[in-house]
Protein backbone atom coordinates (compact mmCIF):
# COMPACT_ATOMS: atom_id res chain seq x y z
CA UNK A 1 0.00 0.00 0.00
CA UNK A 2 1.39 3.36 -0.89
CA UNK A 3 1.29 6.28 1.51
CA UNK A 4 -1.07 9.00 0.32
CA UNK A 5 -1.47 12.63 1.31
CA UNK A 6 -4.80 14.47 1.32
CA UNK A 7 -4.20 17.44 -0.93
CA UNK A 8 -6.18 20.06 -2.78
CA UNK A 9 -5.71 21.73 -6.16
CA UNK A 10 -4.82 25.23 -5.04
CA UNK A 11 -4.21 26.77 -8.45
CA UNK A 12 -4.76 26.04 -12.12
CA UNK A 13 -2.74 27.93 -14.74
CA UNK A 14 -3.07 27.70 -18.52
CA UNK A 15 0.48 27.47 -19.85
CA UNK A 16 -0.38 26.81 -23.49
CA UNK A 17 -3.23 25.29 -25.49
CA UNK A 18 -3.74 21.87 -23.90
CA UNK A 19 -1.05 22.35 -21.26
CA UNK A 20 -1.95 23.30 -17.72
CA UNK A 21 0.05 23.82 -14.58
CA UNK A 22 -1.49 22.69 -11.30
CA UNK A 23 -0.51 23.61 -7.78
CA UNK A 24 -1.20 21.16 -4.97
CA UNK A 25 -1.29 22.04 -1.29
CA UNK A 26 -1.94 19.87 1.75
CA UNK A 27 -5.55 19.86 2.84
CA UNK A 28 -4.45 20.38 6.44
CA UNK A 29 -2.15 23.26 5.48
CA UNK A 30 0.92 21.43 6.77
CA UNK A 31 4.42 21.24 5.29
CA UNK A 32 5.18 18.94 2.40
CA UNK A 33 8.31 16.78 2.28
CA UNK A 34 11.25 17.94 0.18
CA UNK A 35 12.17 15.85 -2.87
CA UNK A 36 15.00 15.23 -5.31
CA UNK A 37 15.11 16.53 -8.88
CA UNK A 38 13.37 14.13 -11.27
CA UNK A 39 10.84 12.91 -8.68
CA UNK A 40 7.23 12.24 -9.58
CA UNK A 41 4.01 11.94 -7.63
CA UNK A 42 0.97 9.82 -8.43
CA UNK A 43 -2.38 11.56 -8.39
CA UNK A 44 -5.54 9.55 -7.66
CA UNK A 45 -7.98 11.23 -10.03
CA UNK A 46 -11.65 10.80 -9.09
CA UNK A 47 -13.05 9.94 -12.50
CA UNK A 48 -16.74 9.06 -12.67
CA UNK A 49 -15.91 5.52 -13.83
CA UNK A 50 -13.48 4.92 -10.96
CA UNK A 51 -10.21 6.23 -9.61
CA UNK A 52 -7.46 6.66 -12.20
CA UNK A 53 -3.90 6.97 -10.93
CA UNK A 54 -1.41 8.89 -13.09
CA UNK A 55 2.20 9.86 -12.41
CA UNK A 56 3.38 13.45 -12.95
CA UNK A 57 6.84 14.94 -12.51
CA UNK A 58 7.33 17.58 -9.84
CA UNK A 59 8.39 20.86 -11.43
CA UNK A 60 8.75 23.31 -8.58
CA UNK A 61 11.22 24.18 -5.86
CA UNK A 62 11.50 21.52 -3.13
CA UNK A 63 12.35 24.36 -0.76
CA UNK A 64 8.77 25.58 -1.08
CA UNK A 65 7.16 23.29 1.49
CA UNK A 66 3.66 24.64 0.98
CA UNK A 67 2.97 23.58 -2.56
CA UNK A 68 3.86 21.12 -5.28
CA UNK A 69 3.71 22.07 -8.97
CA UNK A 70 3.03 19.78 -11.90
CA UNK A 71 2.29 20.48 -15.57
CA UNK A 72 -0.07 18.27 -17.54
CA UNK A 73 -0.58 17.99 -21.28
CA UNK A 74 -3.98 16.89 -22.49
CA UNK A 75 -3.19 13.62 -24.27
CA UNK A 76 -4.98 13.05 -27.56
CA UNK A 77 -5.74 9.43 -26.75
CA UNK A 78 -6.41 10.15 -23.12
CA UNK A 79 -7.96 7.34 -21.08
CA UNK A 80 -9.52 10.05 -19.02
CA UNK A 81 -6.85 11.25 -16.60
CA UNK A 82 -5.41 14.23 -18.44
CA UNK A 83 -8.81 14.99 -20.00
CA UNK A 84 -10.36 15.14 -16.55
CA UNK A 85 -7.59 17.44 -15.33
CA UNK A 86 -8.20 19.76 -18.25
CA UNK A 87 -11.99 19.71 -18.33
CA UNK A 88 -13.21 19.06 -14.81
CA UNK A 89 -10.49 19.89 -12.30
CA UNK A 90 -11.13 23.13 -10.47
CA UNK A 91 -9.29 25.06 -7.82
CA UNK A 92 -10.33 23.65 -4.45
CA UNK A 93 -10.71 20.09 -5.80
CA UNK A 94 -9.50 17.57 -3.21
CA UNK A 95 -7.09 14.93 -4.56
CA UNK A 96 -5.13 12.14 -2.89
CA UNK A 97 -1.46 12.16 -3.82
CA UNK A 98 1.39 9.72 -3.22
CA UNK A 99 4.73 10.60 -1.68
CA UNK A 100 7.40 11.60 -4.21
CA UNK A 101 9.45 8.80 -5.73
CA UNK A 102 12.41 9.19 -8.04
CA UNK A 103 13.08 6.96 -11.03
CA UNK A 104 15.02 9.66 -12.88
CA UNK A 105 17.67 10.94 -10.49
CA UNK A 106 20.82 12.96 -11.20
CA UNK A 107 24.26 11.46 -10.98
CA UNK A 108 26.15 13.08 -8.13
CA UNK A 109 29.50 12.17 -9.63
CA UNK A 110 29.04 13.65 -13.10
CA UNK A 111 31.42 16.36 -14.31
CA UNK A 112 28.85 17.74 -16.74
CA UNK A 113 25.14 17.17 -17.34
CA UNK A 114 23.28 17.41 -20.67
CA UNK A 115 19.54 17.81 -20.07
CA UNK A 116 17.17 17.17 -22.97
CA UNK A 117 13.43 17.76 -22.96
CA UNK A 118 10.87 16.77 -25.56
CA UNK A 119 7.49 18.48 -25.21
CA UNK A 120 5.87 17.95 -21.81
CA UNK A 121 9.00 15.96 -20.89
CA UNK A 122 10.34 19.35 -19.87
CA UNK A 123 8.77 18.91 -16.43
CA UNK A 124 11.43 16.70 -14.77
CA UNK A 125 14.13 18.56 -16.72
CA UNK A 126 13.12 21.80 -14.99
CA UNK A 127 13.53 20.19 -11.59
CA UNK A 128 16.91 18.76 -12.60
CA UNK A 129 18.03 22.19 -13.77
CA UNK A 130 16.90 23.69 -10.50
CA UNK A 131 18.83 21.14 -8.44
CA UNK A 132 21.99 21.44 -10.54
CA UNK A 133 21.86 25.22 -10.33
CA UNK A 134 21.53 24.99 -6.56
CA UNK A 135 24.50 22.64 -6.36
CA UNK A 136 26.58 24.84 -8.67
CA UNK A 137 27.13 22.01 -11.18
CA UNK A 138 27.89 22.30 -14.90
CA UNK A 139 24.89 21.67 -17.12
CA UNK A 140 23.20 22.66 -20.38
CA UNK A 141 19.60 22.34 -21.49
CA UNK A 142 18.11 21.36 -24.85
CA UNK A 143 14.37 21.76 -25.27
CA UNK A 144 12.42 20.51 -28.27
CA UNK A 145 8.80 21.56 -28.66
CA UNK A 146 6.14 21.69 -31.37
CA UNK A 147 5.82 25.44 -31.79
CA UNK A 148 6.95 28.52 -29.84
CA UNK A 149 3.74 28.74 -27.83
CA UNK A 150 4.33 25.20 -26.56
CA UNK A 151 7.67 26.08 -25.03
CA UNK A 152 6.16 26.07 -21.56
CA UNK A 153 8.33 26.84 -18.52
CA UNK A 154 11.04 28.20 -20.84
CA UNK A 155 11.55 31.41 -18.89
CA UNK A 156 11.99 29.45 -15.70
CA UNK A 157 14.48 27.15 -17.42
CA UNK A 158 16.45 30.07 -18.82
CA UNK A 159 16.66 31.64 -15.40
CA UNK A 160 17.91 28.39 -13.83
CA UNK A 161 20.37 27.61 -16.62
CA UNK A 162 21.82 31.09 -16.76
CA UNK A 163 20.57 31.44 -20.31
CA UNK A 164 22.21 28.19 -21.55
CA UNK A 165 19.00 26.75 -23.03
CA UNK A 166 18.92 25.65 -26.66
CA UNK A 167 15.47 25.51 -28.25
CA UNK A 168 14.39 23.33 -31.16
CA UNK A 169 11.04 24.34 -32.55
CA UNK A 170 9.50 21.70 -34.80
CA UNK A 171 7.29 24.19 -36.62
CA UNK A 172 10.53 25.89 -37.75
CA UNK A 173 12.03 22.53 -38.76
CA UNK A 174 14.49 22.64 -35.91
CA UNK A 175 15.26 19.16 -34.66
CA UNK A 176 17.78 17.84 -32.15
CA UNK A 177 20.64 15.98 -33.78
CA UNK A 178 21.72 13.52 -31.10
CA UNK A 179 24.99 12.70 -32.86
CA UNK A 180 25.97 16.32 -32.75
CA UNK A 181 24.71 16.74 -29.20
CA UNK A 182 26.62 13.78 -27.77
CA UNK A 183 29.81 14.11 -29.81
CA UNK A 184 33.08 15.43 -28.45
CA UNK A 185 32.00 15.32 -24.80
CA UNK A 186 34.59 14.93 -22.02
CA UNK A 187 34.64 11.82 -19.83
CA UNK A 188 32.18 11.97 -16.96
CA UNK A 189 29.40 13.65 -18.93
CA UNK A 190 25.91 12.36 -18.24
CA UNK A 191 22.94 12.87 -20.54
CA UNK A 192 19.29 12.87 -19.51
CA UNK A 193 16.18 12.83 -21.68
CA UNK A 194 12.49 12.98 -20.97
CA UNK A 195 10.23 12.94 -24.00
CA UNK A 196 8.09 10.85 -26.33
CA UNK A 197 8.92 7.22 -26.99
CA UNK A 198 10.45 7.70 -30.43
CA UNK A 199 12.75 10.43 -29.18
CA UNK A 200 13.88 8.32 -26.24
CA UNK A 201 14.65 5.36 -28.49
CA UNK A 202 16.62 7.55 -30.90
CA UNK A 203 18.55 9.03 -27.97
CA UNK A 204 19.55 5.68 -26.51
CA UNK A 205 20.43 4.18 -29.87
CA UNK A 206 22.64 7.12 -30.85
CA UNK A 207 24.35 7.17 -27.48
CA UNK A 208 25.08 3.48 -27.73
CA UNK A 209 26.40 3.80 -31.28
CA UNK A 210 28.72 6.51 -30.07
CA UNK A 211 30.07 4.30 -27.32
CA UNK A 212 28.36 5.95 -24.36
CA UNK A 213 27.87 3.42 -21.56
CA UNK A 214 24.33 2.93 -20.20
CA UNK A 215 25.55 4.21 -16.84
CA UNK A 216 25.82 7.72 -18.27
CA UNK A 217 22.59 7.82 -20.32
CA UNK A 218 19.32 8.35 -18.48
CA UNK A 219 15.76 8.67 -19.65
CA UNK A 220 12.28 8.77 -18.29
CA UNK A 221 9.21 8.21 -20.31
CA UNK A 222 5.72 7.92 -19.00
CA UNK A 223 3.95 5.10 -20.68
CA UNK A 224 0.21 5.33 -20.55
CA UNK A 225 -1.21 1.82 -20.18
CA UNK A 226 -2.36 0.88 -23.68
CA UNK A 227 -5.98 -0.30 -24.01
CA UNK A 228 -7.03 -3.70 -25.38
CA UNK A 229 -9.66 -6.39 -25.07
CA UNK A 230 -11.53 -6.97 -21.88
CA UNK A 231 -10.36 -10.00 -19.89
CA UNK A 232 -10.67 -11.63 -16.48
CA UNK A 233 -8.14 -11.84 -13.67
CA UNK A 234 -8.45 -14.65 -11.15
CA UNK A 235 -6.80 -14.18 -7.76
CA UNK A 236 -5.23 -17.52 -6.88
CA UNK A 237 -5.29 -17.08 -3.14
CA UNK A 238 -8.92 -16.08 -2.70
CA UNK A 239 -10.39 -17.51 -5.89
CA UNK A 240 -12.00 -14.13 -6.62
CA UNK A 241 -12.47 -13.05 -10.20
CA UNK A 242 -11.96 -9.47 -11.33
CA UNK A 243 -13.12 -8.10 -14.67
CA UNK A 244 -10.68 -5.83 -16.55
CA UNK A 245 -12.35 -3.45 -18.99
CA UNK A 246 -10.80 -2.64 -22.36
CA UNK A 247 -9.69 0.84 -21.37
CA UNK A 248 -8.66 -0.11 -17.84
CA UNK A 249 -5.28 -1.53 -16.80
CA UNK A 250 -5.07 -4.76 -14.79
CA UNK A 251 -3.65 -2.78 -11.89
CA UNK A 252 -6.54 -0.34 -11.98
CA UNK A 253 -9.08 -3.17 -12.10
CA UNK A 254 -7.46 -4.86 -9.11
CA UNK A 255 -7.49 -1.60 -7.18
CA UNK A 256 -11.13 -0.95 -8.10
CA UNK A 257 -11.92 -4.43 -6.73
CA UNK A 258 -10.46 -3.47 -3.37
CA UNK A 259 -7.06 -5.12 -3.52
CA UNK A 260 -3.89 -3.06 -3.00
CA UNK A 261 -1.11 -4.48 -5.13
CA UNK A 262 2.24 -2.69 -4.84
CA UNK A 263 3.14 -0.11 -7.50
CA UNK A 264 5.52 2.78 -7.95
CA UNK A 265 5.76 4.27 -11.42
CA UNK A 266 2.60 2.78 -12.97
CA UNK A 267 4.35 3.03 -16.33
CA UNK A 268 5.99 -0.36 -16.75
CA UNK A 269 9.51 0.75 -15.86
CA UNK A 270 10.30 0.23 -12.22
CA UNK A 271 9.43 -3.40 -11.50
CA UNK A 272 7.57 -2.77 -8.28
CA UNK A 273 4.28 -4.34 -9.44
CA UNK A 274 5.87 -7.54 -10.80
CA UNK A 275 3.32 -10.31 -10.31
CA UNK A 276 3.65 -14.10 -10.56
CA UNK A 277 1.36 -15.81 -13.07
CA UNK A 278 -0.16 -19.13 -12.07
CA UNK A 279 -2.12 -19.86 -15.24
CA UNK A 280 -3.25 -18.15 -18.43
CA UNK A 281 -5.48 -19.35 -21.24
CA UNK A 282 -4.75 -16.46 -23.58
CA UNK A 283 -1.92 -14.61 -25.26
CA UNK A 284 0.22 -12.26 -23.17
CA UNK A 285 0.62 -8.65 -24.23
CA UNK A 286 3.74 -7.45 -22.41
CA UNK A 287 3.81 -3.65 -22.72
CA UNK A 288 6.38 -2.99 -20.03
CA UNK A 289 10.05 -1.95 -20.04
CA UNK A 290 11.11 -4.14 -17.14
CA UNK A 291 10.88 -7.89 -17.80
CA UNK A 292 13.61 -9.62 -19.75
CA UNK A 293 12.71 -11.55 -22.87
CA UNK A 294 13.32 -14.78 -20.96
CA UNK A 295 10.95 -13.67 -18.24
CA UNK A 296 8.29 -12.76 -20.80
CA UNK A 297 8.71 -16.08 -22.58
CA UNK A 298 8.36 -17.99 -19.33
CA UNK A 299 4.73 -16.96 -19.04
CA UNK A 300 5.26 -16.79 -15.27
CA UNK A 301 5.45 -13.03 -14.78
CA UNK A 302 3.49 -9.96 -15.76
CA UNK A 303 3.54 -6.24 -14.97
CA UNK A 304 -0.13 -5.39 -14.29
CA UNK A 305 0.32 -1.63 -14.54
CA UNK A 306 0.64 -1.69 -18.34
CA UNK A 307 0.46 -5.29 -19.61
CA UNK A 308 -2.61 -7.26 -20.64
CA UNK A 309 -3.80 -10.50 -22.17
CA UNK A 310 -5.88 -10.85 -25.34
CA UNK A 311 -9.18 -11.70 -23.73
CA UNK A 312 -9.67 -14.88 -21.70
CA UNK A 313 -8.54 -15.40 -18.11
CA UNK A 314 -5.25 -15.04 -16.26
CA UNK A 315 -4.67 -16.39 -12.76
CA UNK A 316 -2.18 -14.48 -10.67
CA UNK A 317 -0.59 -15.16 -7.29
CA UNK A 318 -2.34 -12.47 -5.28
Amino acid at each position, binding site marked *: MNAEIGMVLSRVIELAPGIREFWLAREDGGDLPAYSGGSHIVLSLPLPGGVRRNPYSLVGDPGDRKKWRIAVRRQEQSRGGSAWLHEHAREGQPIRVSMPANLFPMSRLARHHILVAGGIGVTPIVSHARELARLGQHFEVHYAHRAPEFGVLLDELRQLAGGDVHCYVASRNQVIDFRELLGGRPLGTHAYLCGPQGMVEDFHKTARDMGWPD*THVHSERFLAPPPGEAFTVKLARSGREVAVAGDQSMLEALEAAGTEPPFLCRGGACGQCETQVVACDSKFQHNDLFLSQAERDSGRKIMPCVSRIAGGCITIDL
Partner: protein
Amino acid sequence: MSAAAPSIKSQPVYHALEWDAAGVRHLLFVASDDPPLLDRLLAAPPRGELTALSTDAAAGERLQSSGAAAHTLVADGLARGLETLGLLLRDSEMGLRLYLVGCEDAIWQAAGIASGYGMSSAEIRLFQTGTKARPVFCVHCRAMTRGVRTNLVDCSGCGRTLFVRDHFSRRLGAYMGFQIDAEEPGVKPPVELAYP
Protein backbone atom coordinates in the same frame (compact mmCIF):
# COMPACT_ATOMS: atom_id res chain seq x y z
CA MET B 1 38.06 -11.08 13.56
CA SER B 2 39.30 -14.44 12.44
CA ALA B 3 42.48 -15.49 10.69
CA ALA B 4 40.67 -18.32 8.91
CA ALA B 5 38.71 -16.04 6.58
CA PRO B 6 36.85 -17.77 3.76
CA SER B 7 36.94 -16.20 0.32
CA ILE B 8 35.39 -12.75 0.58
CA LYS B 9 32.97 -11.26 -1.95
CA SER B 10 34.73 -7.88 -1.99
CA GLN B 11 37.82 -9.45 -3.48
CA PRO B 12 37.97 -8.61 -7.21
CA VAL B 13 37.58 -11.40 -9.73
CA TYR B 14 39.35 -10.73 -13.02
CA HIS B 15 37.72 -12.07 -16.16
CA ALA B 16 39.70 -12.88 -19.30
CA LEU B 17 40.37 -9.54 -20.94
CA GLU B 18 38.54 -8.82 -24.20
CA TRP B 19 38.10 -5.61 -26.15
CA ASP B 20 34.72 -3.98 -25.46
CA ALA B 21 32.94 -3.80 -28.81
CA ALA B 22 30.63 -1.08 -27.47
CA GLY B 23 33.52 1.39 -27.23
CA VAL B 24 34.50 3.63 -30.16
CA ARG B 25 37.94 4.52 -28.81
CA HIS B 26 40.21 2.43 -26.62
CA LEU B 27 43.05 3.12 -24.22
CA LEU B 28 45.22 0.23 -23.10
CA PHE B 29 47.37 0.80 -19.99
CA VAL B 30 50.01 -1.84 -19.31
CA ALA B 31 51.99 -1.90 -16.07
CA SER B 32 53.33 -5.48 -16.33
CA ASP B 33 54.39 -7.33 -19.43
CA ASP B 34 52.19 -10.30 -20.31
CA PRO B 35 53.30 -11.59 -23.73
CA PRO B 36 50.48 -14.11 -24.38
CA LEU B 37 47.79 -11.62 -23.34
CA LEU B 38 49.18 -8.73 -25.34
CA ASP B 39 49.85 -10.87 -28.40
CA ARG B 40 46.26 -12.13 -28.32
CA LEU B 41 44.80 -8.65 -27.91
CA LEU B 42 46.99 -7.04 -30.53
CA ALA B 43 46.36 -9.78 -33.07
CA ALA B 44 42.68 -8.78 -33.11
CA PRO B 45 42.54 -5.09 -32.28
CA PRO B 46 39.23 -3.37 -31.53
CA ARG B 47 37.10 -1.26 -33.85
CA GLY B 48 38.03 2.36 -33.34
CA GLU B 49 41.23 4.13 -32.45
CA LEU B 50 43.55 2.38 -30.01
CA THR B 51 46.06 4.18 -27.82
CA ALA B 52 48.53 2.21 -25.73
CA LEU B 53 50.45 3.43 -22.69
CA SER B 54 53.04 1.22 -21.00
CA THR B 55 55.15 1.65 -17.89
CA ASP B 56 57.06 -1.55 -18.71
CA ALA B 57 59.81 -1.28 -21.34
CA ALA B 58 59.42 -4.82 -22.74
CA ALA B 59 55.64 -4.44 -23.04
CA GLY B 60 56.20 -1.06 -24.63
CA GLU B 61 58.39 -2.58 -27.32
CA ARG B 62 55.87 -5.31 -27.97
CA LEU B 63 53.11 -2.73 -28.36
CA GLN B 64 55.19 -0.52 -30.61
CA SER B 65 56.30 -3.28 -32.93
CA SER B 66 52.78 -4.71 -33.30
CA GLY B 67 51.58 -1.50 -34.89
CA ALA B 68 48.08 -2.23 -33.66
CA ALA B 69 47.81 1.03 -31.76
CA ALA B 70 47.52 4.38 -33.48
CA HIS B 71 49.64 5.85 -30.67
CA THR B 72 51.99 4.06 -28.29
CA LEU B 73 53.51 5.81 -25.29
CA VAL B 74 56.09 4.40 -22.91
CA ALA B 75 56.45 5.98 -19.50
CA ASP B 76 59.43 5.66 -17.20
CA GLY B 77 57.97 3.81 -14.25
CA LEU B 78 54.55 3.56 -12.63
CA ALA B 79 54.37 7.06 -11.15
CA ARG B 80 55.13 8.68 -14.50
CA GLY B 81 52.75 6.29 -16.20
CA LEU B 82 49.87 7.22 -13.91
CA GLU B 83 50.57 10.90 -14.48
CA THR B 84 50.47 10.39 -18.24
CA LEU B 85 47.28 8.37 -17.91
CA GLY B 86 45.65 11.27 -16.10
CA LEU B 87 46.59 13.68 -18.87
CA LEU B 88 45.26 11.34 -21.54
CA LEU B 89 41.97 10.91 -19.72
CA ARG B 90 41.64 14.63 -19.14
CA ASP B 91 41.53 15.12 -22.89
CA SER B 92 39.49 12.02 -23.73
CA GLU B 93 35.88 11.91 -24.82
CA MET B 94 32.79 9.85 -24.01
CA GLY B 95 32.91 6.62 -25.99
CA LEU B 96 36.31 5.60 -24.65
CA ARG B 97 36.99 2.24 -23.05
CA LEU B 98 39.91 1.83 -20.68
CA TYR B 99 41.84 -1.42 -20.17
CA LEU B 100 44.17 -1.77 -17.19
CA VAL B 101 46.70 -4.60 -17.22
CA GLY B 102 49.21 -5.18 -14.44
CA CYS B 103 49.63 -6.06 -10.79
CA GLU B 104 46.77 -5.10 -8.50
CA ASP B 105 48.56 -2.13 -6.99
CA ALA B 106 49.10 -0.53 -10.42
CA ILE B 107 45.73 -1.24 -11.97
CA TRP B 108 43.70 -0.03 -9.00
CA GLN B 109 45.70 3.15 -8.73
CA ALA B 110 44.96 3.66 -12.41
CA ALA B 111 41.28 2.88 -11.84
CA GLY B 112 41.19 5.54 -9.13
CA ILE B 113 42.45 8.12 -11.59
CA ALA B 114 39.80 7.09 -14.12
CA SER B 115 37.04 7.38 -11.48
CA GLY B 116 38.23 10.88 -10.81
CA TYR B 117 37.38 11.71 -14.41
CA GLY B 118 33.86 10.33 -13.98
CA MET B 119 34.40 6.96 -15.63
CA SER B 120 32.20 4.13 -14.38
CA SER B 121 33.05 0.45 -14.06
CA ALA B 122 31.13 -0.07 -17.32
CA GLU B 123 33.93 1.78 -19.14
CA ILE B 124 36.88 0.17 -17.38
CA ARG B 125 38.18 -3.41 -17.58
CA LEU B 126 40.91 -4.61 -15.23
CA PHE B 127 43.16 -7.61 -15.53
CA GLN B 128 45.67 -8.75 -12.92
CA THR B 129 48.97 -10.02 -14.27
CA GLY B 130 52.54 -10.12 -13.03
CA THR B 131 53.10 -10.28 -9.31
CA LYS B 132 50.25 -11.14 -6.94
CA ALA B 133 51.91 -9.01 -4.26
CA ARG B 134 49.35 -6.95 -2.38
CA PRO B 135 49.09 -3.38 -1.15
CA VAL B 136 47.98 -3.61 2.48
CA PHE B 137 46.10 -0.89 4.36
CA CYS B 138 46.72 -0.95 8.11
CA VAL B 139 43.43 -0.40 9.85
CA HIS B 140 45.17 0.83 13.01
CA CYS B 141 47.47 3.55 11.72
CA ARG B 142 46.10 3.82 8.15
CA ALA B 143 49.50 3.44 6.52
CA MET B 144 49.81 1.62 3.20
CA THR B 145 52.41 -1.13 2.93
CA ARG B 146 53.02 -2.13 -0.69
CA GLY B 147 54.41 -5.22 -2.38
CA VAL B 148 53.30 -7.66 0.33
CA ARG B 149 53.84 -11.30 -0.67
CA THR B 150 53.27 -12.97 2.70
CA ASN B 151 50.21 -13.73 4.84
CA LEU B 152 51.64 -11.56 7.62
CA VAL B 153 53.54 -8.30 7.28
CA ASP B 154 55.02 -5.76 9.67
CA CYS B 155 53.20 -2.48 9.06
CA SER B 156 55.43 0.18 7.50
CA GLY B 157 53.69 2.78 9.66
CA CYS B 158 53.22 1.40 13.18
CA GLY B 159 55.26 -1.82 13.10
CA ARG B 160 52.40 -4.08 14.20
CA THR B 161 52.34 -7.52 12.62
CA LEU B 162 49.34 -7.48 10.33
CA PHE B 163 47.32 -10.36 8.97
CA VAL B 164 46.57 -9.71 5.29
CA ARG B 165 42.85 -10.24 4.74
CA ASP B 166 41.01 -10.88 1.50
CA HIS B 167 38.66 -7.93 2.17
CA PHE B 168 39.50 -5.41 -0.57
CA SER B 169 38.68 -1.71 -0.98
CA ARG B 170 38.52 -0.49 -4.58
CA ARG B 171 38.70 3.11 -3.47
CA LEU B 172 41.94 2.51 -1.57
CA GLY B 173 43.13 -0.15 -4.02
CA ALA B 174 44.29 -2.25 -1.09
CA TYR B 175 43.59 -5.23 1.15
CA MET B 176 42.87 -4.79 4.84
CA GLY B 177 45.52 -5.59 7.41
CA PHE B 178 44.81 -5.94 11.13
CA GLN B 179 47.00 -6.90 14.07
CA ILE B 180 47.18 -10.69 14.14
CA ASP B 181 48.05 -11.05 17.83
CA ALA B 182 45.65 -8.52 19.33
CA GLU B 183 43.85 -11.24 21.31
CA GLU B 184 46.99 -13.01 22.45
CA PRO B 185 50.02 -10.70 22.17
CA GLY B 186 53.07 -12.49 20.82
CA VAL B 187 51.14 -15.51 19.58
CA LYS B 188 51.43 -15.45 15.80
CA PRO B 189 50.95 -18.12 13.14
CA PRO B 190 53.93 -18.87 10.89
CA VAL B 191 54.70 -16.48 8.07
CA GLU B 192 53.98 -18.01 4.67
CA LEU B 193 54.48 -16.91 1.11
CA ALA B 194 50.91 -16.33 -0.04
CA TYR B 195 51.00 -13.78 -2.91
CA PRO B 196 54.05 -14.49 -5.06
